[in-house]
């Protein structure tokens, strides 16, 4: 019998990444966890980007390469002392190569609760048209 209790979430260390270009501001860079799935009409990407505000997120698509970059600004006050630090904060950066051709003007991006939902509609395949010959 399948267990209906949702399982407990396990801790995953954040993965650091080295970006191709040097950062203008020094700091750590992490790869965000993503889910990518595809339907007939579109490819959807969900990325965990906690702490990134919509205005700090850059999504770039050129030459079939999709780049997601999110900036983080420090949230701690100046006179706070650390007692227990289990995770570090840093920018997010990840790149993907897309194999499908994407209709760029219909890309939709939503960032809520620190999760980015990026919908990339595929270009509609050319529908063959029947041509009737006038008599």
């Amino acid at each position, binding site marked *: 019998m399948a267990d209906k209790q949702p399982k407990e*979430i396990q801790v995953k260390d954040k993965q650091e990444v080295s970006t191709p270009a040097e950062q203008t501001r020094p700091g750590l860079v992490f790869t965000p966890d*993503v*889910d990518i799935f*595809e339907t007939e009409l579109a490819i959807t990407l969900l990325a965990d980007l906690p702490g990134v*505000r919509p205005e700090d997120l850059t999504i770039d698509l050129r030459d079939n390469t999709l780049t997601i970059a999110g900036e983080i600004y420090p949230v701690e006050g100046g006179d*706070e002392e650390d007692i*227990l630090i289990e995770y570090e904060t840093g920018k997010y950066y990840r790149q993907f190569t897309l194999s499908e051709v994407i209709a760029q003007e219909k890309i939709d991006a939503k960032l809520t609760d620190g*999760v980015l939902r990026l919908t990339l509609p595929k270009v509609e395949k050319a529908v063959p048209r029947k041509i009737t010959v006038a008599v």
Partner: protein
Amino acid sequence: MLYRQMFGLPTWRARGPFTELERMRQQMDRLMETLSPDTSIARPAGVFPLINLTEDRNGYHLRAELPGVKADDLEIQVLRKTISLSGKRTFSEEGQEVRYHRREREAGTFSRMIGLPDEIDPEKVKASLKNGILTVVVAKAEAAKPRQITVA
């Protein structure tokens, strides 16, 4: 990750002398990982969510990264010396016709209790969940705040 707990030693909050050593240890850990990625260096196993706990004169700040968790699914309880976080993360239904290429995010439940070095005032607690980051600010109990002594 830096992992220093100073419970029960109220006079010894020194973080200056050890910060450099911690940084060196972190860098050595990272170096070891690049040499042999399969060896798991002993790291704190950790419970989800990972938290950062900081202190200032008047209270404590607890932060956790909880992307995709709604405020309704999160329960925070505060006792005199502990903060307890529990809740669940759910994903929206995606439909039948989907084909997954990558599946890195996890959904499920979490529950964690964090002990605090000093007593706090359970009446003065503020919590906010913004952009997937939870911030809980608690004020120290009046008895636990340092008191200024003036010399006559």
